């Protein structure tokens, strides 16, 4: 990997949640750089604050201390240049497939809007379903729709919060390779939160391993395997098992 510009830098991020007058620390001094065009995965135990960190990157939450900078500018709120992809729950049920993809394109001329709708419907394989409502789609199709809606506004960054967590395991595998294909074609910077270590090692350039709450960065693992990855190769298993051990999980059941 060539040396690339820093896209995002998080500096000493600390966050806490207030509930019933009690303060629960969530993130403890997280510092992290994400390179332009990088695919970064964040893994960690459930409830450790992965999604909180991602929400802060998106600008939905602001850190208690520390700063997140994207292209050198401090993040102060959500921005269409970085689109947050929820699990498929984020698509609007009152809009058709076309309507959902068009949602963020209001500033564009009509012709350009139509061009992007057609292009991204094709890219995510929803051709033939332009007029269908989300309720008529399967979980995987809804997830692809949400990715298409995000890509249609040409964001520099995609922030994905366990996007495939609610899918069945076969659909999940297909979606992973589709996401990689789209990422290679579009060249966006991707930050991908997951609790699935295999998923992280299959997708990422680097895997950030967070500790239990309040989360600290335990380790950053560089995945030096070219795509398409052979998930039975010795190097893959070595990296994967390394992360399992890091999280204190034995890799035998």
């Amino acid at each position, binding site marked *: 990997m060539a040396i690339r510009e820093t896209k995002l830098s998080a500096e000493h991020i600390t966050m806490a949640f207030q509930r019933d007058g009690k303060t629960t620390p969530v993130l403890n001094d997280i510092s992290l750089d994400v390179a332009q065009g990088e695919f970064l995965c964040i893994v960690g135990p459930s409830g450790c604050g992965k999604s909180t960190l991602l929400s802060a990157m998106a600008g939905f939450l602001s850190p208690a201390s520390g700063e997140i900078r994207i292209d050198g500018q401090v993040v102060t709120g*959500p921005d*269409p240049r970085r689109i*947050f992809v*929820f699990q498929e729950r984020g698509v*609007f049920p*009152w809009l*058709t497939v076309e309507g959902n993809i068009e949602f*963020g394109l209001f500033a564009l001329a009509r012709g350009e809007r139509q061009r992007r709708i057609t292009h991204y419907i094709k890219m995510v394989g929803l051709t033939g379903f332009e007029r*269908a409502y989300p309720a*008529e789609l399967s979980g995987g199709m809804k997830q692809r729709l949400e990715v298409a809606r995000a890509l249609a506004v040409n964001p520099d960054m995609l922030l994905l919060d366990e996007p495939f967590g609610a899918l069945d395991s076969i659909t999940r595998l297909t979606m992973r390779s589709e996401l990689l294909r789209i990422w290679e074609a579009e060249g966006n910077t991707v930050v991908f939160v997951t609790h699935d270590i295999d998923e992280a090692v299959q997708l990422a350039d680097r895997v950030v391993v967070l500790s239990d709450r309040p989360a600290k960065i335990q380790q950053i693992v560089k995945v030096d395997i070219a795509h398409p990855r052979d998930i039975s190769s010795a190097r893959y298993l070595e990296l994967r098992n390394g992360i399992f051990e890091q999280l204190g999980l034995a890799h035998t059941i």
Partner: protein
Amino acid sequence: MLRFANALGHRRFQVAANRRSCAGPSARDIPILERRGNRPKGLRLLLTKLRPLVFIAVLLLLWQIAAGRQTVHVLPSPLETLAGIIDLARQGLLLKYAVASLFRVTWGFISASVLAIPMGLTIGWYRRAEMAFNPLIQILRPISPLAWIPIAILWFGVGDIAAIFLIFISCLFPLLLTAINAVQGIPAVYMNAGRNFGLSPAAIIYRVLYPAVMPQLITGLRITLGLAWLVVVAAEMIAVNSGLGFLIIDARNAGNRYDLVVAGMVVIAVIGLLLDLLMRSLAAAKSLRWGVVTED
């Protein structure tokens, strides 16, 4: 939708369509599945469709027989009731009273909607407003609208305005609560997605909040209209000298004409049913209800 699936000949899509039909709020979707699986033909189909009507006809027949055998006259027979309806129609009272009742329900319902829905949406949106208004709403809500009748007459006299006020009061609180709950029930992901794509606050209201609350609001409006139709009958028994409620109480007071009492009840039932069907057809509009499959 189903036609679309067939045209595609897409097996998986059809499965999705089936599942959709089952999950849909309309119970009318279910017979379609049965029909597709094991399509009853000709006479059997006719019998299936007529079943509810046959059942009602049998009950009417039993009622007629029972009414004929009673020694003390406690209930008019179906034929007497029918004669009562015809009698009322001939005198012109049926239309006049139905229109009077519908007039009151319409104005009471519309004025309550116009006030309660924007107010409820605003209260639901601002947490502080909800904290301020909620106790008041909770105190006023359990008071039966009928308890307002003396106050209504005191303020507005015996007449249309008093009745409209009672309908207004009875619709106000259910609609307020529906609107508050609808806003508070919007999943945060929709709002966040709207903000993420750079929508202005006005655009978020128009493009996210409004469509997101619509299905719940329509359901609330439908239930509330049914409630208004219940209340108008009671209100008209006391607060006015016309309308279907007045017809019922007047038929009793003016000579124990129980055939006219039951005739009035039947007319109330039929109009109530029609009002509900009207609201249902509104609820089925595709643009208002998120992509629910309609039968066409």
